[in-house]
């Protein structure tokens, strides 16, 4: 009989990804409610100190899996090794943080066991003694409650920020090494070193006031009204990804998971829907204002002030009002 919850611990350059602790916290909560043991697993080559760190959390066990072929992350290496761990440990539920790395290998791992991965969840509830997972669909406009069906193990990943990693209960877990059969020929991807592109020319992290523009602006030439508003406010201009993808503003103005992370005094989001990948880059702002024609846009969920309306009316009116105030 399958049993227990197994958490995947991710690490890069000797550091545990903090999102993994969010998954540990999820396991502690679900484990307590469903009366399940909890364990974590960490893959790599020379990860004993990382395992010791994780073992300081309240878990029943921390497994280490070490191999030369796991020195750097590859989806082939990780899925092959993880599959053998699952066969040895027989968990009922495998929890992960929905990071880029997990997106890269977890669907393969689940498919190799003919299982589903309920990916990118934001929470769970217990219904009839079983966990039901909540996911965002339509980029956060709707939610869906989803249950994995069929035989265990079930695989679930949680969106970053869904649980508080800093609320993990402390404990003392036993560390146990597992061995797997994995050889270099089975790994088909040859990764090179990670790198960053040339340093961004503008550093938006220091800007106290930011006006950010999204696809609601429709055309490049309309960016002008945003520039006028920013100039009146003395604010920096930023953008959502599609604006930078279209080269309407340079890449280094992009806010979000693949852009800059900012925490200004004021973040004014104009024509931005509020997809999670954007929100992670700006939700730390002290005051958030959203201007959007759709009253249901997810951006309003995190805004302090909102105006539902056509930005082509609201923005010029706001610019005029700020100019008036500054006089």
């Amino acid at each position, binding site marked *: 009989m399958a049993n227990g919850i197994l958490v995947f611990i991710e690490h890069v350059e000797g550091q545990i990804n903090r999102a993994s602790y969010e998954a540990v916290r999820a396991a502690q909560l679900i484990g307590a409610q469903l009366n399940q043991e909890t364990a974590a697993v960490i893959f790599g080559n020379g990860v004993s100190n990382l395992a010791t760190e994780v073992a300081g959390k309240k878990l029943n066990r921390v497994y280490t899996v070490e191999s030369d072929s796991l020195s750097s992350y590859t*989806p082939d290496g990780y899925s092959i090794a993880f599959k053998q761990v699952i066969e040895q440990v027989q968990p009922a539920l495998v929890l992960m943080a929905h990071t*880029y790395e997990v*997106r*890269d290998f977890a*669907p*393969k791992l*689940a*498919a190799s066991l*003919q299982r*589903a*991965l309920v*990916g*990118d969840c934001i929470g769970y509830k217990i219904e009839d003694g079983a966990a039901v997972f909540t*996911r*965002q*669909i*339509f*980029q*956060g*406009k*709707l*939610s*869906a*409650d*989803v*249950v*994995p*069906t069929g035989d265990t193990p079930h695989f679930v990943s949680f969106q970053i920020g869904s649980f508080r990693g800093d609320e993990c209960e402390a404990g003392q877990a036993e560390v146990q090494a597992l061995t797997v059969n994995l050889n270099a020929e089975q790994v*088909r*991807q*040859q*990764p*090179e070193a*990670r*790198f*960053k592109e040339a340093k961004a020319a503008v550093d938006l992290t220091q800007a106290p006031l930011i006006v950010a523009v999204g*696809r609601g602006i429709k055309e490049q030439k309309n960016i002008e009204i945003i520039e006028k508003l920013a100039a009146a406010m003395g604010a920096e201009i930023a953008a959502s*990804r*599609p604006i930078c993808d279209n080269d309407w503003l340079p890449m280094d103005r992009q806010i979000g*998971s*693949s852009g800059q992370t900012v925490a200004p005094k*004021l973040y004014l989001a104009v024509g931005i829907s509020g997809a999670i990948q954007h929100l992670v880059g700006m939700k730390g702002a*002290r*005051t958030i*204002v959203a201007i959007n024609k*759709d009253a249901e846009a*997810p951006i*309003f*969920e*995190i805004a*302090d*002030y*909102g*105006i539902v*309306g056509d930005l082509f009316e*609201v923005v010029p*009116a*706001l610019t005029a*009002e700020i100019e008036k*105030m500054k006089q």
Partner: protein
Amino acid sequence: MKIIVCLKQVPKNDSILRINDAATWIQDRDLTYEINESDAYALEAALQLKEKNGGEVVALSLGPARVQSVIKEALARGADRGLHLEDAAFDNLDAFGAAATIAAAAKSDGFDLLLTGLQSDDHGYAQTGVIAAELLGLPHATIVMDLQTEGSGIKVKRELEAGFFQWVTLPLPGVFTIQSGINTLRYATLKGIMAAKKKEIKKLDAAALGLDAATLAPKQQIKRVYFPQKSKQTQMIEGTGAAAAATLVEKLKNEARVF
């Protein structure tokens, strides 16, 4: 070089969404549809690879009759042929079932590269391509920003978190999920639209693909769909003109103290 590109048809990004009576999905009657955003970039990447290396681009879509419009759009932009996977048995697939169906079709047609978008704008599982790779026994790479052929293999640039990137080399055939914004999309020309009319769209159903009910049975079930509960108290300012602007500026100055 033969490339199959998977194009999912999704409700237009600014659709007004209404939940169906069973609260299991949206009311899909009055919606207008478009090509999933990252899939459009995958198609462009395929067309550019073909222009550079020669070969063929095949546009594949899974879904009801309406998805033929995304295949036709791809043919008008320069794809050579279409594959339309349609069957009542495909109506309630989960990501695994969708991937199994796409994998079966891709295998029967043959390819060097199978491209998908990195995730759909409606369900957003971000899994279909990776599952297909596993079912096909092929290597894959996700969140791809650039593809360079290298001998008999390929070198791809992957986007990682926090502004990092990484080049990965892998053998072909392989499966790649493409990130939005990696190239500049072309639009269909009148000539392209005319040429598309003569291009073949092959229809394949479950029987033709040798897919049985067990393979297609969902491994996850959507219990209910609903509008998210609001947790934060947003102060909504009425109006859109000068008065609303004045109220906002006053609040930012005196309440939030940002000016």
